[in-house]
């Protein structure tokens, strides 16, 4: 039994981390006072009042990091769900209907997949000059083709299975067949993809805010925190270490959960 727990340790830790992030983002009281500035205390090293010190604006680093959990979860979740919704609609349709519908969807997807995602995101989001939610929208659009391709190839693997023909023989109708027969079969695939997408989306979003293209300077955001902290490495390194570790750990946690789901679904298929 102990070996089982040891093997599953990364997964357990990952789930704990993710639970913590979610709790932090929905319970604002936990990170109250994150944005309070105090110029007098600018860039102070850790002490009793501020366990991780303060940043250049005198904000408590610890509180600021905890507050950053919100932007670290809401955006990526939206991106993952949004892109997957598009993916399901077009991917399932392309696989099931086939023919020229599939051809068109596939050509568009291929084209979009050949575009360099991050580069375009930086450029387009930057030029449009939106904010956090503009970035989210841009990434939903840029991630969607990956999901379409994923769903389509997952569905294609089963498209010749007789149970779908059997559904046709029962005259179930395409909508019912897609929803209750084709979708359940690719559900594990979709589940794993959602987590991996969230991991990538977190990195993408925070990259943009790191470059100064995301949230406004006032908001608590790990990417923005890191960008501000670049110049503080000699004064209060924790201002950089805290958000840096936070992003890395959260991202890895999402990845671990995603990989675990993939593993489970592969085992089930054998």
């Amino acid at each position: 039994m102990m070996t089982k727990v040891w093997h599953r340790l990364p997964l357990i830790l990952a789930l704990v981390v993710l639970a913590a992030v979610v709790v932090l983002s929905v319970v604002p009281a936990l990170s109250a006072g994150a944005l309070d500035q105090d110029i007098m205390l600018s860039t102070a090293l850790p002490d009793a009042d501020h366990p991780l010190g303060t940043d250049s604006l005198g904000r408590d680093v610890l509180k600021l990091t905890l507050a950053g959990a919100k932007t670290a979860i809401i955006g990526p979740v939206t991106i993952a769900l949004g892109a997957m919704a598009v993916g399901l609609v077009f991917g399932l349709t392309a696989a099931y209907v086939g023919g020229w519908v599939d051809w068109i969807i596939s050509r568009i997807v291929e084209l979009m997949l050949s575009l360099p995602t991050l580069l375009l995101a930086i450029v387009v989001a930057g030029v449009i000059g939106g904010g956090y939610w503009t970035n989210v929208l841009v990434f939903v659009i840029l991630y969607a083709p990956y999901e379409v391709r994923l769903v389509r190839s997952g569905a294609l693997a089963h498209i010749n299975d007789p149970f779908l023909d059997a559904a046709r023989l029962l005259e179930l109708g395409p909508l019912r067949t897609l929803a209750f027969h084709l979708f359940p079969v690719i559900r594990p695939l979709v589940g794993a993809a959602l987590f991996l997408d969230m991991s990538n989306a977190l990195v993408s979003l925070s990259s943009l805010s790191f470059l100064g293209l995301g949230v406004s300077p006032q908001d608590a955001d790990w990417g923005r925190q890191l960008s501000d902290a670049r110049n503080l490495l000699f004064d209060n390194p924790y201002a950089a270490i805290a958000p840096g570790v936070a992003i890395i750990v959260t991202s890895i946690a999402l990845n671990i959960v995603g990989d675990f789901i993939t593993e489970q679904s592969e085992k089930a298929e054998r």
Partner: protein
Amino acid sequence: MDALKFLGKRLANLILLLFVLSLVTFGLLYMTNSDPARTLAGAKKVSAEQLAAIRAQYHLDDPLWRQYLRWLNNLLHGDFGTSIRTQLPVSQMIGQRAWITLALALLALAIALVIGLPLGILAARRNGRWQDRLVTALAVAGLSAPSFAVGLLLLYGLSVQLGWFPIYGLGEGGFLDTLWHLLLPAITLAVGLFASVVKISRASLIKQVDSDYTLFARSRGVARRTILAAQLRNAALPIITSSGLLIATLVSGTVIVETTFAIGGLGTLLQTSVTFKDIPTVQAITMIMATIICVATAVVDALAALIDPRLRVRRSPVAVAAVAVTAGSSNVGRADNDGTAGANVSDDRAVDAAAHGAGANDGKETAR
């Protein structure tokens, strides 16, 4: 499909892609919140006459398609316009910095391949054992961690604390000194790449090790070296195909890494220009980077296709049988002259599905 026809198709795809990219890039001018003329005027206040002058200078009153063609024409002749921010010719600014980004990218690629490929192969051959677990864990970490976070942490640990590496910028010295300054940024960039390389090469080789033909070869007492060579050859194909993706990650990643380490390459220039809304510069750099990515990917794809004998069609030595089999056509493969009862489905879509594989992170260009 003839090899030439195949290449032709690829080329057509590439041109279409570049066309679409150029449209998007061109359209950037119109995506800003303000009027194009005002954007091109820059951040300062301008009078009505100055605005009119800019309008005339950039032919903003022409129909869109003509503006596009003019812009494209200039681009193809090397005229990238003038930077709004510095008032210098964009081509000059790019010329100064391009080689820095190139050096950074190549260095990162070299590090990633030299460390990643052998580790991936090792993990595959020791599948399930501790070497495999360790390497896989490293890959997961490398893949998830954003490069700016990794970069800053490395910067703090290795440069500020331990003083092993220089802190920011490119230094004053000559070629070697600059390379030294590029080392930590290259390592940072390589982290994400190396993770992809490991994952792909490991998965690819494992598939070969578990394959039927490996088992059969072993059972016939075929020499170990021969079997390994066959496995590597078969594994190489998907590795080569996925390396197109690596290039995209590499080029895009330079933007982030350069900004993190304050390296004055194309990446920082892009970031500064985007923030400043210096459209001409943004357009130029975007087109250059995107073109490099697309061309490199297309070349790599074509290479993979040429290596795989299944994609080469020729007059088979077994001509009669080959004609009856019509391999690769979308015939619902029942007409097998030798009476094979199994469904030999040569369905385009099935091949598609198999080739792309249903992994979520497959082909996902991770933000670096």
